[in-house]
């Protein structure tokens, strides 16, 4: 009897041991996250063919370099970053569906790298699905402001800051009347809605406001209508690309002696400079973000030269902001300790004093639960002036100081 019982217990013990071994092989005893080597998916909404493609692709290039660099150093929390991409062709009506698609495909964070209007259109989707979105280059204040801003963040100085800086510059120059020429994209319509009231509030009268379609063949009529109002200065509000070249060529022909200003577009798109007629960009002032006193800009410039070779035409705000966006996401994931989107969003909200590769040397980026626009002051912006058809020196009349 004793031997029968012993045999029974032995077989039970062996069975239990075997079952444990199988269980151990199937279900590791150690918690999943410590051994998880699967990629952390980052989605990127971009524009590969529309009006924003001129700058979206510059940003995408540095985003990919940043991800490659991070993965080469072991990734984040020991896991590689994996980028998935969707292009909305700068059509904001497509953006929410494409963002949802990337979320369904596992994206834990979305980089909003199309036009500003696309980023604004994506906010509600991000808020409903509780996935953080970070716009590296878009300047529409609404991206980081209520409503639906809980999961939306933006990196650069918003358009209202550009308005503040230009208002101050106009004051210093004695500009009282302004002519404005814009493209008819939804992004620029939104930007103008925030920018122009800021300039008007500083006492500048907009005497002419003209628009041209993104596929315009000629803008002479619009420029002549502005010319007839004899403004003290002209402001070009455009996504950039060939249309802004057309604006600048025609302004140079018709209003050569009138000071010209541009948003952050053409000045940050080196591939368009040689398309302008000889000297057509001379004297044009634009909002840049690369300051000569920022060592991080120089370091990034070196890195991109090494990685992109002849394709890299010089550091612009777009590349710097794309690179910094990835670094901020990395830090947020590390703060979260895992790839849970809500924890990543909280991680972003607790980033403070990040020193970016754009802006002045003392410029920093911070977020908090009530502040989803990252800039800590106006000195993320540098007003630059073209000499001939290339950026020359900083604009002598006015520069924003770091707070």
């Amino acid at each position: 009897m004793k031997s029968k019982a012993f045999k029974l217990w032995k077989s039970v013990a062996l069975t239990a041991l075997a079952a444990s071994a199988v269980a151990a092989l199937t279900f590791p005893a150690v918690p999943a996250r410590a051994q998880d080597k699967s990629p952390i998916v980052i989605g990127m909404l971009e524009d590969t063919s529309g009006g924003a493609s001129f700058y979206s692709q510059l940003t995408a290039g540095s985003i990919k370099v940043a991800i490659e660099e991070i993965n080469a150093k072991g990734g984040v929390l020991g896991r590689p970053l994996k980028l998935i991409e969707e292009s909305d062709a700068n059509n904001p009506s497509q953006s929410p569906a494409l963002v949802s698609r990337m979320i369904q495909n596992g994206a834990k964070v979305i980089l909003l790298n199309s036009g500003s209007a696309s980023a604004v259109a994506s906010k509600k989707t991000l808020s409903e699905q509780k996935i953080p979105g970070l716009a590296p280059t878009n300047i529409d204040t609404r991206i980081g402001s209520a409503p639906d801003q809980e999961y939306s963040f933006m990196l650069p100085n918003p358009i209202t800051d550009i308005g503040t800086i230009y208002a101050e510059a106009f004051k210093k120059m004695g500009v009282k009347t302004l002519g404005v020429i814009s493209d008819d994209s939804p992004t620029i319509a939104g930007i103008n809605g925030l920018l122009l009231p800021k300039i008007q509030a500083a006492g500048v009268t907009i005497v002419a406001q003209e628009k041209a379609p993104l596929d315009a063949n000629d803008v002479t009529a619009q420029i002549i209508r502005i010319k007839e109002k004899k403004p003290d200065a002209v402001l070009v509000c455009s996504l950039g690309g060939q249309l802004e070249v057309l604006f600048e060529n025609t302004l140079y022909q018709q209003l050569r002696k009138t000071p010209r200003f541009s948003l952050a577009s053409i000045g940050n798109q080196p591939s368009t400079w040689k398309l302008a007629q000889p000297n057509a960009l001379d004297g044009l002032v634009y909002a840049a973000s690369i300051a000569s006193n920022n060592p991080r800009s120089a370091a990034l410039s070196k890195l991109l030269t090494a990685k992109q070779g002849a394709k890299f035409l010089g550091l612009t705000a777009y590349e710097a902001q794309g690179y910094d966006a990835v670094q901020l996401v990395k830090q947020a994931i590390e703060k979260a300790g895992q790839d849970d989107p809500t924890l990543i969003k909280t991680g972003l909200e607790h980033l403070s004093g990040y020193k970016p590769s754009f802006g002045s040397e003392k410029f920093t980026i911070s977020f908090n639960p009530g502040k989803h626009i990252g800039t800590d002051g106006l000195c993320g912006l540098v007003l630059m002036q073209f000499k001939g058809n290339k950026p020359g020196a900083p604009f002598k009349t006015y520069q924003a100081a770091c707070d």
Partner: protein
Amino acid sequence: MPSQLFVSIVEIGCFFALIALGYLIVLYGAGFFHFALGPYAMFSALGAAYWVTASEWPLWVAVVAGVAAAVALSVVTELLVVRPIEKRVRGEELPSLIAVVATLFAVSQLAGTVFGRKPFPGQPWMDFEDPIEWGEAVIGGQTVIIVGVTLAIFILLAAWLRWSRYGQWLRAVGENQEAARTLGFPVARIRLAAFAVGGLIAGIAGPLFSPKAGVNFESGLSYSLFGFIALVMGGTGSIWAPLAGGLILAALQIAASYLFGSPSLNYATLIAAALFFAFRPEGLFARRVRH
């Protein structure tokens, strides 16, 4: 109206005129409305721009290659799309017209696939360090090229149609293919020549005009539409009719933008087209038939 606007009218008018001229030549030689010429102009312009910027080809090599591509596309359209369908449906025009409209979209997507979906800058053929000043107007190098090339094409084509054997046969075939075939004309070859010449004109027009405002794979549809309206306005009664139609259309667009703002451009085009369709569908220069 300020004199600079007249410079714009001439530039844009010449481009519309060339597309319309391409339509007219194919209409003369094949009795067919070749709606896909706009995308051929786009393909040529986009190809030239791509080969210069991405492949660093010399400009002239890239332009010649773009023009050759446009001619090839036009010839292939006749051989593989229009001719087989017309043979099958005997006398009905609609099926082949629909097929060519489908070709219009296919060529656009092909361009987007081959050259990418990003807009490309056009490459100027010539530029002046100091543009020509004419009163208050300023005339750049590319404007001079556009006008010169346009006039040269019109003059050469007029001479070809009047004095060359193929040119004279072209109209005969376009009027009545069956009669022409009965009389021993090489109808198939003449049709092919018409398509090739149409493609050649569109292929030159694209890179000629694209330095002004760039080009992307979706530009072809608007080129086709404006060329068509220019032909409607000018009529088919003379080789110079497309030039008149192109300049009138350009003048309407520029004047509307200047007088009423840029949103009025499309309305002005629509209203002008509707008025011509309603009251003068044969255009300004109609073909006269002696009784």
